[in-house]
């Protein structure tokens, strides 16, 4: 049953050095506040899993939190490169990072298989690509038609972290807008943390609302604007300017570190 705790406490309790951590949110509801707290707590050797590393993993990679990255699209959406991601892979800065990359369809089916407690997911995918030589994908043969299909191994992160609009006081969570793979991430993980914009007395069902019951969540932490520069549909707006500024901030190692020092390491935790 979810406990409602401080973000600092939740991260200390749930995220350990060396853990595999899936922080999801497809463009929307990216759990930046939790990522920053992990950076502040100096976690190391994480296996970071995320379909779209986005700025949150660019920051964590640049701070040396990870030994391994599992992903499917490592760009700054609509802007260009993720410079810290590139620097980590191209030059091993600040620490070497092993990568395992998939297609979006492959990653989505890996989460779905994890959520369903199946050992693998099934798709028509990866056909004729060089990805098959560099990643963990195999084939299975349909026992009815003889057709060969791609098989991807289930994801079972140690911890899943997602951000949502709201939780009630019993720890039930509701999110709406672009739902991404958050449900699958939480259900595939051994432990889970949900940061929320706000606590409410009662969840009022919303169009497009997805409910995660408190009994599949370990901890809830209130983190208003905790998705910034991503957003929480109906509550905050995506900070597209910041995504563009990040291209400049993150290009240079020192500028990046200075920004992180000022805005993350030395920042007052707001919640």
């Amino acid at each position: 049953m979810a406990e409602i705790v401080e973000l600092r406490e939740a991260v200390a309790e749930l995220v350990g050095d060396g853990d595999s951590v899936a922080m999801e949110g497809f463009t929307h509801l990216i759990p930046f506040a939790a990522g920053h707290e992990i950076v502040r707590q100096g976690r190391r050797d994480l296996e970071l899993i995320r379909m779209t590393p986005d700025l949150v993993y660019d920051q964590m990679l640049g701070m040396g939190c990870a030994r391994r990255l599992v992903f499917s699209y490592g760009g700054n959406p609509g802007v260009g490169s993720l410079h810290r991601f590139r620097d980590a892979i191209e030059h091993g800065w600040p620490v070497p990072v092993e990568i395992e990359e998939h297609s979006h369809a492959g990653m989505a089916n890996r989460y779905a298989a994890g959520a369903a407690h199946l050992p693998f997911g099934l798709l028509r995918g990866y056909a004729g690509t060089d990805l098959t030589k560099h990643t963990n994908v195999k084939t299975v043969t349909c026992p009815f038609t003889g057709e060969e299909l791609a098989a991807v191994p289930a994801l079972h992160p140690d911890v899943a972290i997602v951000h949502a609009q709201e939780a009630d006081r019993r720890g039930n969570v509701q999110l709406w807008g672009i739902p991404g793979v958050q449900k699958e991430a939480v259900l595939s993980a051994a432990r889970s943390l949900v940061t929320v914009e706000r606590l409410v007395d009662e969840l009022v069902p919303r169009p497009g609302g997805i409910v995660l019951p408190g009994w599949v969540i370990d901890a809830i932490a209130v983190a208003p604007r905790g998705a910034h520069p991503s957003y929480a549909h109906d509550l905050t707006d995506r900070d597209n300017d910041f995504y563009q500024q990040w291209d400049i901030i993150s290009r240079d190692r020192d500028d990046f570190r200075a920004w992180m020092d000022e805005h993350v390491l030395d920042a007052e935790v707001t919640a």
Partner: protein
Amino acid sequence: MSTSATAGEVQTIVAARLLAGAPSCFIGVGGPSTAAILARAIVNPDLVLVYESGTIGAKPYRIPLSIGDGELAATADFVVPVVEMFNYWIQPGRIDMAFLGAAQIDREGSLNTTVIGDYDAPKTRLPGAGGAPEIATGCDRVMVVAPHAKRTFVERLDFLTTRAAPEAVITDLGVLAPDPEAGGELALTHIHPGVTVDAVRDATGWELRVAADLRTTEPPTDEELSALRELVAR
């Protein structure tokens, strides 16, 4: 319209025109998004725009920066989780057409968005596959939109990310399409106004075939150009 169209504007308008009559279009980030939104304004008001974030039937007023901007979800006919998007909508071929971009394209139309140089010691690490491999096999029709340059149109891909068989590759210089008489190799079928065949050949990393009936692209109309500029200015 006071000024004449830039090469990039011609490219976007040509791409948009190709969406006439298409029921639905899958959109990646960047240039292709602008073309698809423009298509709804100039040639295909009923075009269903599908973004891999899960928004189906989005009707953005402005060009979104990302494929998951809030306006896409707010204006969509419906929004689905990523697993459903790939398994129930893309994989079965329910989305008619896809617009893809790439860092490298070869003469077959296959795409590289993964790496420049060696995979294990990359010169430039690119974002990676995203949805493209399965979008390219799931959608009936694939269009590629890319800038025309030797480093993009290459003899040999550094990495084959997406095996695509595009119906057309729309560049800022012209349009390439598979030549059935050359085993489907991409050949130049259209050059944009003011562009020479030699200029296109110079910007292509392989010995580019030119279609026997090479045509010059119909120049953007004032209406097309003003619709595009208005959209970009929003």
